[in-house]
């Protein structure tokens, strides 16, 4: 299978990663279409983070194929990095640098010119209402603002795809809503968004979702498709059926 000619933003085929005898990601195959908001779900330890690290060029796969933004993950991992944005759960902005300094840093790294950086900084700050905090350390911002800012910075260089790893953890519901509005804006503008989350209600906001169980993709499709196939009323139920069939009360069957 060669590079996707149909312009899939992300394509994998039997992507696998093992650590010694432990298989973290077990032959996953899926596509993400351009401009899609794709939810990457799964329990902790199901392999989501490992899969993302392979797709973002941080980890070499053990076997299988994958293309991100048309680039082969094995041979063109550095090219991938120019076309993607990334916001990780552990960290994305430096707490001891100011808002402006963080933006300048990433702007410089992504080869934006001085003017571009200035323009986009103004745009981000006014959009988020943070113009008065431009010279404050990021560490002083409340978590919700930090996350929103981090997302904006991930989009600073206008990448084709952005990977979000649990972006709304620990954030209040209102801020979560605002965050998802930002995600929709980006998707409407043509950016593909791959987001992992363990908030099942957020899964409903995605165009399509996949559910990983023990390294494999147990289900993939739009939220309504999955609910219909599992005869469930919420993604939460779908999830439970897949991950812990014994709890669901019925024989767990995956779509």
């Amino acid at each position: 299978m060669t590079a996707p000619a149909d312009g899939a933003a992300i394509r994998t085929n039997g992507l696998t990663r093992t650590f010694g005898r432990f298989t973290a990601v077990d032959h996953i195959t899926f596509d993400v279409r351009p401009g899609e908001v794709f939810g990457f779900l799964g329990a902790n330890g199901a392999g989501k983070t490992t899969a993302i690290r392979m797709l973002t060029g941080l980890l070499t796969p053990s076997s299988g194929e994958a293309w991100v933004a048309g680039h082969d993950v094995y041979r063109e991992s550095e090219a991938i990095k120019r076309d993607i944005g990334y916001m990780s759960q552990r960290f994305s902005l430096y707490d001891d640098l100011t808002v402006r300094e963080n933006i300048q840093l990433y702007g410089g790294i992504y080869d934006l010119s001085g003017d571009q950086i200035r323009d986009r900084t103004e745009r981000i700050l006014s959009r988020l209402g943070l113009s008065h905090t431009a010279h404050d350390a990021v560490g002083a911002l409340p978590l919700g603002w930090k996350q929103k800012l981090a997302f904006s910075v991930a989009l600073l260089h206008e990448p084709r795809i952005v990977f979000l790893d649990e972006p709304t953890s620990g954030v209040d519901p209102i801020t979560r809503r605002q965050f998802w509005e930002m995600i929709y804006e980006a998707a409407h503008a043509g950016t593909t968004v791959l987001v992992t989350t363990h908030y099942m209600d957020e899964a409903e906001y995605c165009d399509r979702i996949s559910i990983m169980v023990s390294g494999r993709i147990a289900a993939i499709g739009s939220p309504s498709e999955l609910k219909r196939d599992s005869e469930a009323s919420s993604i939460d139920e779908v999830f439970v059926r897949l991950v812990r069939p014994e709890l669901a009360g019925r024989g767990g069957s995956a779509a």
Partner: protein
Amino acid sequence: MSAVSALRGFARRTLALARAEVLHVIRDRASLVQIIVLPLVQLLVLSNVATFAVKRSPVYFVDFDRSATSRGIVSRFAASELFDIVGQTASPAAANEALLRGDATIVVTIPRDFERDLTRDKAAPIGLDVNAEKGSAAGIVQAYAAQILTDYSAELGREITPTRRNVVDATSDVPPLAGAGHIEVRLRSWYNQTLDYKHYMVPGILVALVTMIGTLLTAQNIAREKEMGTLEQLNVTPIGKAEFITAKLLPFWVLGMIDLGLGLVAARLVFGIPIRGSLVLLMGSAGLYLIVALAIGLWISTLVETQQQAMFLSFFVIMIYLLMSGLLTPIDSMPHWVQVASLVNPVRHFVSISRAILVKGAGLTEIAVPLTTLGIFAVGFLTLAIRQYRKRVA
């Protein structure tokens, strides 16, 4: 992409990251202490403490003879600046006590009939008990004591036999003398007239401090990024390996040079260390050396996962380097295999360069050999470290 725009891109990305690095360091109080306060304190204390000089050694006399000759010996020791008579006793047990307690470094025992034996047989023994607990000092103390005795015996010789006779001895290698000449030995100490240990130690201490900053801080810094996950965020960007490494090492290189500069100023003003050679040459060599030290720090950071491991491993490596560098004790005194091993030790070369420039006033030609070696190390270690560093885990 043209070479110029590639270069400009390199510069822009590197500078963006380097700028952030500098800001991090300035705003982290712990870093500042490590970079400025700690080395300063170490420099000030160590320079005052690092000496193997033997000052007034306490000497105990046990004089069984109590003759004019034996009193002559005592007075010679009393007159010497190197010795300090702390007691005279007729009891060897008391002197032994003094040794055990550490009150005396050397006990001189003059046996009975000392003067008589000396006058009659022209030879007599004298007992020297040296407290070797202190190691190298013991050797020097003994040598000084022996010197005093030799000088004294020469004096006595001239008194007892005022005339010299000529003897032709066919079996000896000493050619026949027409008269009674004697050899007048003039001693001259080069580079360190006052025999001040600071002249020897302070250049070495400066090297050690610069090495700490270069290697330890770099390793710690990168390991911390690994631990906190910020490294991953950088690895996901298009920033290249060379750019990342330059941006990381450059601030610490500058800091190391600044520290060295400040250290030199302190050494000159506070300790009066001479700067006989070219400062430009010294700083140039330092710049080269720092690259090696930084590369080693970078290499260490690729081997560890946490800050703590970085710290321990760095200490370990630095300690090995420092001990075998001729910093504390001269390389010439080490066993041959250690001397050979030290040739691959970059610290050794920089220590000898700094001493040569500061204390001996050496110029470029005279340090050419160690300098070239450092250059080779710089290229070698840097290449190794860059190879070792990976943005992607295999």
